[in-house]
């Protein structure tokens, strides 16, 4: 009978128990059906694959076969469904933009 459980384990590589803990740490989430848990785990796996693959394909490291942080950050910015991730990505501000916003603030102060 344990063989059935093993069949399921082959389709899922992420630890289901950890996924469950993370889900439960979400506010207001009470009980989760076991099958729903498996589904979420599988979806998370697909997400990792999707994120890694599209970041690599859109990224600058294709020729050198590398994947960098900025490849990921750019993909998140460019893909609408991934916008929920912007909060955990410190925005890479161009130096000139930063200086410009700094000037603006100084001008505002000067108005007093």
């Amino acid at each position: 009978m344990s063989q059935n459980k093993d069949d399921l384990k082959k389709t899922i590589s992420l630890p289901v128990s950890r996924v469950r803990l993370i889900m439960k740490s979400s506010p207001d989430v009470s009980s989760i059906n076991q099958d729903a848990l498996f589904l979420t785990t599988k979806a998370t796996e697909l997400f990792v694959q999707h994120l890694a693959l599209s970041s690599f394909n859109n990224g600058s490291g294709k020729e050198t076969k590398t994947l960098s942080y900025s490849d990921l950050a750019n993909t998140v910015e460019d893909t609408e469904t991934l916008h929920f991730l912007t909060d955990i990505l410190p925005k890479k501000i161009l130096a000139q933009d930063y200086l410009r916003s700094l000037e603006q603030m100084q001008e505002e102060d000067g108005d007093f």
Partner: protein
Amino acid sequence: MASSSGNDDDLTIPRAAINKMIKETLPNVRVANDARELVVNCCTEFIHLISSEANEICNKSDKKTISPEHVINALESLGFASYITEVKDVLQECKTVALKRRKASSRLENLGIPEEELLRQQQELFAKARQQQAELAQQEWMQMQHAAQQAQMAAASASAAQQASSSQDEDEEDDM
């Protein structure tokens, strides 16, 4: 990485599992360490996103437990509909596993004997065996007693016979 704070927000998917998946998805690609760290954190965010959405859908549906259906609808509304086909395959496997488990337990029931009855029968057999053993022990005891009695009687009659013959000798002497 044992965290004594026990902060819920520190929960993430183990790094090793993520590394393995990245390796399988992008074989022969060098991935920067900070990029890996980012993927780990993105995973946690994704799980929160799906849980919250599924939870909202669940609340609207009057059900108390988040079901597979709620998760699928959440994926759809969040723009991850492309995941749904593969995710549904897992659901099918879950059902197959559950079905196999039910079949296995019902096969036992199909003997026509439920588990409680089997237990009761087992207890009966044990009781019978204990009784048989007790009877056997008693029989042996009685046989031993019987044998001992016989031995005693035999000894008694033997000595009685001896006495009888010795007193006869005395009588003969008196007659002379």
